[in-house]
């Protein structure tokens, strides 16, 4: 009875779901991931793209980022996971996410088995390192351009909607 772990990665360019090599127990993954995380070809043999949902507009990206930053499940994310996470069958689907709050929301919404921390953190570090190479048609430049555009729109909105204009903590 194998465990099929999928990992959700949220990026300025869109949502991505990665399938991790099947193992008997999730605990067996950590040393394997640690060993291969730095090499793209080795990492790719363990973690591969299952689905990608590109944001269709700057507005769409901003709405999704606002939801993600608050730990909320946007309709786009719901549809994406509904469509792409395999249904329970012989294999038990488990979804790894980076934020426990969104994990709890997904567990409630879909009744999925959610995993955070531990090996999921290491897998996400690997995905973040190799992301542009794992998604077909994406380049390092395009990935950072998406971050740049969304960074500006997210931050501009933050500053604009600070109604009382009082300063937050200085950090």
């Amino acid at each position, binding site marked *: 009875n194998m465990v099929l772990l999928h990992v959700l990665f*949220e*990026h*300025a360019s869109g949502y991505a779901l990665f399938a991790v090599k099947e193992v008997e127990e999730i605990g067996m993954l950590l040393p394997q991931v640690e060993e291969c*995380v*730095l090499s793209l070809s080795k990492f790719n043999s363990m973690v591969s793209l299952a689905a990608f949902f590109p944001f269709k507009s700057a507005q769409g990206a901003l709405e*999704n*980022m606002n939801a*993600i*930053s*608050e730990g909320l499940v946007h309709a786009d994310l719901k549809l994406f996971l509904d469509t792409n996470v395999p249904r329970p069958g012989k294999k038990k689907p488990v979804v790894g996410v*980076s*934020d426990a709050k969104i994990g709890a929301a997904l567990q409630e919404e879909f009744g999925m088995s959610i995993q955070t921390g531990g090996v999921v*953190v290491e897998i*996400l*570090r690997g995905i*973040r*390192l190799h*992301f542009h190479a794992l998604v077909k048609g994406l380049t390092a430049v395009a*990935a*950072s351009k998406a*971050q*740049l555009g*969304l*960074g*500006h729109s*997210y*931050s*501009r909105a*933050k*500053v604009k909607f*600070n109604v009382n*204009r009082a*300063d*937050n*903590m*200085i*950090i």
Partner: protein
Amino acid sequence: GSRGGRGGFGGGRKVLVEPHRHEGVFICRGKEDALVTKNMVVGESVYGEKRMSVEEGETKIEYRAWNPFRSKLAAAILGGVDQIHIKPGAKVMYLGAASGTTVSHVSDIVGPEGLVYAVEFSHRSGRDLLNVAKKRTNIIPIIEDARHPHKYRMLVGMVDVIFADVAQPDQTRIVALNAHNFLKNGGHFVISIKANCIDSTAAPEAVFAAEVKKMSSENMKPQEQLTLEPYERDHAVVVGIYRPPPKQKK
């Protein structure tokens, strides 16, 4: 950036610019030597700093003065820090970006091939930071709380260096949280520590030692520590490596 014409270094005398030991940083030899960076946005100052241009063959290159009394990174460089790890092409996360004055020099250093993820929580400073980032497309502005890296995880890739100047009592924890998410294995951190922001009753040396100990427990290995005298009082900069590679067995 309202200043026009040539910079005022040496009263119109010719200036000579030499590369500094740290790649991407330069020294301007004039009446008085000055630390400078190569201006990404020619013709504009960010915070009223002086500019000077040098003709190299056909092309004119402009540099901006970098004041060590206004920037801890500049103070560390003039204090003789061995490594800053911020260099052309580097991807840098800058925690505590404030109005973007030092960030603009980091943007000059990393150049068009590099990136600066500039995190600042204060909305007042954030407005200035956004204006600096508008003209410098290698700065990704992030107005968000550095204590909650998951809030801005969509905006950030893996980085080579984290620079932190957050002046918070739990700043080592803040840097560690960001490192666990965004700093490459073997990447570096450069942290400015203001002793009385962490504990105003203890001796500065004791505060620095306690912070260094906290770093070690987060897989952050300090490699160098220096004080920022005479530019700042009771400040130290700690430079180190995150998740150092295991030593090769012979």
